[in-house]
C-alpha cells in the first residue's frame, strides 16, 4: 500500500521543529483568544485587545530598559492597564469603555515609542511584538503559552457562572452576591496574560481580530452562551492551526494568515445566518409571523 498522493507534502512542514512549535503555539493562542474574546465582545470592549496589545508594547519596552523579565513585566503592565480601564469606566461612567481604552492604552504605547526613540539600539527587537513572528517561538515561549492556557482554563472553569452573570448584568450580579470586583480583577489578569503570550504569534497589530472574530462568528451561529463559548474557542484554535499551516504554503505572515482565515469564516457565517433567517421567515408564513412575539418580529424585520 502506498501513501496517498500529497500526504507527504501535507506533513512536510512538521519535519521542521520551529514549525511544530509554531503550530502548537498558534493553536493554543487561537483557542485562548477565542475563549476570552467571548467575554470581551459581550462586555462591549472589542477594542480592548487592540488597545492592551499596544499598552503591553509599552510595558515590554520598559521591561527591556529595566532588564526585567519580558513576560512578567509586560503582563504586569497589561494587568495594570486593564484594571485602570475598568476603574476609570466604573468611577466615571460618563467616560465610556472605548474612550478609556483609547486614552490609557495609547498613552502606554506612546511611552514605549518614546523609550524606543530614546534608545534606538533595540528598535529591531520589537518588530516581532508589532507584527508577530511565529517562527521565532522557542521552548520558553511555548511553556509560557501553556502556563497561561492552563491558568485561563482554570479561571474560566471555576468562575464560569460568576463570569457569565457579571458579563450579563454586573450590577444585578452584585445584588445576587457575586463578588463582581474580584471577578473583574480576575478577568483583567487573565486577559493581560493572554494578550502578552499572543503577541509573539499574532503581533500587536492583528491581535484584535483573533479576539473578536471567533466570538462574533459563534454569536451568528447560536443564541446560547454555553454553545457560544464552545464554538468560539474551537474556531479560534482551528483558525490558529489552519492559519499557520496555510501560511507555510502560500508564504505570508502567520498572523495575517490566521486573521484572513477567520475573516473568511465570518463571511461564511454571515451568509449562513442570512439564509437561515430567510428560510425561517418563509416557513413561518404570514399567519404564524403575525402570532410571533413583538420583539422577535421586530428583530426579523430588521434583517
Amino acid at each position, binding site marked *: 500500500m502506498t501513501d496517498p498522493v500529497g500526504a507527504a507534502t501535507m506533513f512536510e512542514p512538521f519535519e521542521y521543529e520551529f514549525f511544530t512549535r509554531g503550530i502548537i503555539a498558534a493553536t493554543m493562542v487561537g483557542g485562548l483568544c477565542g475563549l476570552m474574546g467571548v467575554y470581551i465582545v*459581550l462586555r462591549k470592549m472589542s477594542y480592548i485587545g487592540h488597545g492592551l496589545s499596544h499598552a503591553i508594547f509599552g510595558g515590554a519596552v520598559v521591561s527591556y530598559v529595566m532588564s526585567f523579565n519580558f513576560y512578567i513585566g509586560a503582563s504586569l503592565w497589561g494587568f495594570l492597564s486593564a484594571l485602570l480601564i475598568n476603574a476609570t469606566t466604573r468611577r466615571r461612567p460618563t467616560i465610556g469603555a472605548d474612550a478609556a481604552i483609547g486614552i490609557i492604552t495609547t498613552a502606554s504605547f506612546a511611552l514605549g515609542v518614546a523609550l524606543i526613540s530614546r534608545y534606538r539600539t533595540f528598535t529591531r527587537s520589537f518588530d516581532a511584538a508589532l507584527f508577530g513572528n511565529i517562527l521565532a517561538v522557542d521552548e520558553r515561549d511555548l511553556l509560557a503559552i501553556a502556563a497561561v492556557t492552563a491558568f485561563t482554563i482554570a479561571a*474560566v*472553569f*471555576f468562575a*464560569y*457562572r*460568576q463570569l*457569565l*452573570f457579571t458579563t*450579563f*448584568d454586573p*450590577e*444585578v*450580579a*452584585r*445584588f*445576587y*452576591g*457575586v463578588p463582581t470586583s474580584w471577578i473583574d480583577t480576575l478577568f483583567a489578569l487573565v486577559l493581560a496574560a493572554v494578550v502578552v503570550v499572543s503577541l509573539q504569534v499574532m503581533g500587536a497589530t492583528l491581535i484584535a481580530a483573533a479576539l473578536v472574530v471567533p466570538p462574533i462568528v459563534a*454569536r451568528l451561529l*447560536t*443564541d*446560547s*452562551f*454555553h454553545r*457560544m463559548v464552545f464554538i468560539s474557542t474551537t474556531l479560534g484554535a482551528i483558525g490558529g492551526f489552519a492559519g499557520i499551516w496555510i501560511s507555510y504554503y502560500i508564504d505570508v505572515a502567520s498572523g495575517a494568515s490566521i486573521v484572513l482565515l477567520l475573516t473568511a469564516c465570518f463571511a461564511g457565517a454571515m451568509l449562513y445566518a442570512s439564509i437561515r433567517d430567510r428560510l425561517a421567515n418563509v416557513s413561518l408564513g404570514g399567519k404564524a409571523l403575525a402570532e410571533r*412575539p*413583538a*420583539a*422577535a418580529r421586530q*428583530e426579523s424585520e430588521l434583517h
Partner: protein
Amino acid sequence: MLHPTPHELGPEQNIVEVRNLTCGYGPAVVLENVSLRVAGGDFVGLLGPSGSGKTTLLRALLGAVTYHAGEVSVYGQKLNGHLPRVGYVPQVETVDWNFPVTVEEVVMMGCAMGGGLLPWNRREDRERARDILSRLGIGDLSRRHIRQLSGGQQQRVFLARALISSPRLLLLDEPTAGVDIKTRDDLLHLLDELNHQGVTVIMTTHELNAVAAHLAWVVCINKRIVAEGAPSEVFTPEILERTYGASMPIIKHDGMTLVGERPHQIGRHDRSGRSGDHV
C-alpha cells in the same frame, strides 16, 4: 382581591426597616428623611412620579446607593457594606436583549453563588429551575433565547431567576411596565400567590388602578414619603396631588377605588367649541 394578611408593625416582624434615610447617588440627594417599615408577608407598592425616588428606595434596600443619613435594616441586619440576600427583578429596559442567553441560562444565574465550584449546574438546581418555570407557566420555553419571548414571558423569566434562591423578600422594579392589561393582571395575581406562600413583596409601579385592585399597602413617594396605607385610604385627590403634582379624581365603584384622569384643558372639545361634552 386584597391580601388578607394585616400590615403588622411589631418590631420582631419587620423584614425591612428604614429609619430617617437620606440617600442618593454620590453627593446628589434623591430621598430625604424617609422612614418605612415593611412586615413579613406584606405586599407593598411604591408609587410616585418619574424621578420621585421609587427605584432609589428599592436600591437603598439592596445597599446600592450612597447613604447620607439614617439607616436601613433588612432581616434585622443593618446594611453596612454587606448586601442582603433578596430576590431582585430589575426593570426589563435595563436588560441587554441581544446577549446570547436562553431562558434556562438566565434562571440559573440566580444560583451563581450557591451551586458549587463546577461550571455546570447541579441537578437539583436544574430541577428546581424547571419546576419554577412550570409554575410560572413558561416551562416549555427554557431553551428559547430571551429576545424571542413576549413582554409578560420576559418578566416571568427574571421573576424565576429571583425565585430560584427561595428568597423571603422579593423586590421588583416596575414589573408591570410595557405589558398589556391581561399580562399585567396575570403577573400581579402571580405575585399575590407568592405573597400568600409567605414571600414579602415590594414593587415599584406607575399602575395606580392595578395597585388599588391587587395590593394591600401602598407607599406614595415624592423625594419623601407622602403617605402610606391601604389604597382606599391613600388614594385621595389631596394625597395624589401632593405625590404627582396633578389633580386626579377618585371614583368609588362597586367597592373598588379607581383613579381617574382629567381630560386635557386644550383638547379636541375645546377646539370645536364643545367643551364639557362627555360620552
